[in-house]
């Protein structure tokens, strides 16, 4: 905020320790993987286009002080339901994606509203509640996909139906809509594919977020994120605004998942949504966001870093330990561990800052002895 503040490298590193650790891991992994820079870069571009949108879904709830919205899984689920219908109705290309979005968005609004209600009742533990809510949704979704589909809602296309003749199959080929977005306005520059329209959509989303922060609603979310009590006494409808943050997050997750899956070309009907949740949380935290602060930059940095590690680590692990499984587990481990580390560091830093703030208020005496006494008290 203060432009006169000096740049202190050590402070910068300690403030962005999660990003720094991740960067270091990636730099170590690259030579071991023996992958060419061009291969890594072209893969990165592809993966960035595929998954950046998803991560943006997490920004607003963080801004509104609700932490990482692990319940974005609900939005991803809505997107998948939209896709199931698009495939079942045999709608192809960009139109298929639009139809999936048109079906998914109202569903996301409903799910987001429900989720917001639940999270408002679980103040102070939004993250764990959102997480479990994602699992709960898995059950509802499986009920829908396996029993409602093919019973109340007929399945028309054989490729969608399970071999047993009821419910949606576990892996759905998205052939008709594959590349529906990426392949329009595709530019080939040397070895790199540049899906310009997808980039355009992401750029548009960035602009939306920048604009949104300037609106009254965005401003209110920032206020609530910092102090719910003050916001409430100023007359801001706290609960409603929190629900809106979740609803928008859920909608973005829905669209993000559709973009992700059109690139992948097939979907694990009952598993893909959960991976979206894990990935997005890891990416935004690796990008340097905390539970209480996130920027567009965090998203970009995070997506690039996480994917560079995803690309290199399995192969590096295989090379180092001579075992493909090690590499695979290594990626998973780092994915979970980085979230744990980011959460721990954030909670720990909050506690330390609170202590330091108190130390400034100490009565008489010099600060050193006050701190020493406190250190004694802690032990």
């Amino acid at each position: 905020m203060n432009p006169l503040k000096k740049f202190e490298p050590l402070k910068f590193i300690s403030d962005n320790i999660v990003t720094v650790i991740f960067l270091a891991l990636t730099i170590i992994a690259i030579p071991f993987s023996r992958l060419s820079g061009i291969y890594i870069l072209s893969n990165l571009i592809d993966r960035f286009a595929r998954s950046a949108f998803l991560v943006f879904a997490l920004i607003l709830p963080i801004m509104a002080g609700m932490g990482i919205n692990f319940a974005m899984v609900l939005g991803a689920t809505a997107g998948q339901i939209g896709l199931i219908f698009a495939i079942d109705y045999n709608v192809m290309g960009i139109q298929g994606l639009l139809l999936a979005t048109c079906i998914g968005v109202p569903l996301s609004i409903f799910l987001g509203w429900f989720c917001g209600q639940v999270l408002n009742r679980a103040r102070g533990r939004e993250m764990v509640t959102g997480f479990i809510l994602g699992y709960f949704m898995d059950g509802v979704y499986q009920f829908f996909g396996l029993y409602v589909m093919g019973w109340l809602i007929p399945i028309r296309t054989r490729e969608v139906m399970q071999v047993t003749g009821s419910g949606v199959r576990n892996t759905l080929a998205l052939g008709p809509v594959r590349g529906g977005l990426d392949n329009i306005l595709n530019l080939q520059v040397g070895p790199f594919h540049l899906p310009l329209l997808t980039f355009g959509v992401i750029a548009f989303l960035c602009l939306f977020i920048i604009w949104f922060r300037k609106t009254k609603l965005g401003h209110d979310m920032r206020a609530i994120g910092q102090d719910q009590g003050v916001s409430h006494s100023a007359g801001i409808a706290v609960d409603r605004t929190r629900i809106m943050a979740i609803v928008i997050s859920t909608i973005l997750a829905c669209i993000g998942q559709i973009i992700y899956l059109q690139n992948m070309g097939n979907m694990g009907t009952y598993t893909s949504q959960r991976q979206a949740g894990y990935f997005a949380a890891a990416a935004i935290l690796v990008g340097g966001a905390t539970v209480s602060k996130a920027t567009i930059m965090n998203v970009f940095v995070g997506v690039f870093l996480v994917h560079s590690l995803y690309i290199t680590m399995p192969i590096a692990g295989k090379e180092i330990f001579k075992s493909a499984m090690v590499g695979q587990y290594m990626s998973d481990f780092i994915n979970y561990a980085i979230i744990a580390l980011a959460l721990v560091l954030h909670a720990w830093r909050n506690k330390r800052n609170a202590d330091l703030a108190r130390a400034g208020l100490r009565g008489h005496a010099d600060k050193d002895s006050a701190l020493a006494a406190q250190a004694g008290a802690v032990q």
Partner: protein
Amino acid sequence: MSKKTLMARGLFVAAYLLLAIWAYTTGKGYVVFINNYATGESVEVFVTLDKASPVRIRRGGFVPLMVKGKGTHQIMVRREGAADFEGAFVYPRSAEALSIAVAMIMPGQELVVVPVSAALEER
């Protein structure tokens, strides 16, 4: 709620529905059966519909392909030892499925398409 607000919201909902309807009608895929049934001189062919990637059909083979929407579509047939065929065909509004025989495709001639009865749609 002011009249203007009401109208704006009405328009928004209408636009949303129209988008969905437009996506459904123009994006719906229809099946085209392309057969390469053996006739005297038939060989393996590669068929490209619209902008999709070429599909190989072996001699005597039979492949269902999808086209987006009814109306006019491009078709390209490439076969060994012969010039590429490029042409267009119209998917009739009334048809539920189409059948095209490679053997019937002759350079410089109108493409022959045969509507398939609904019963066959299930392949």
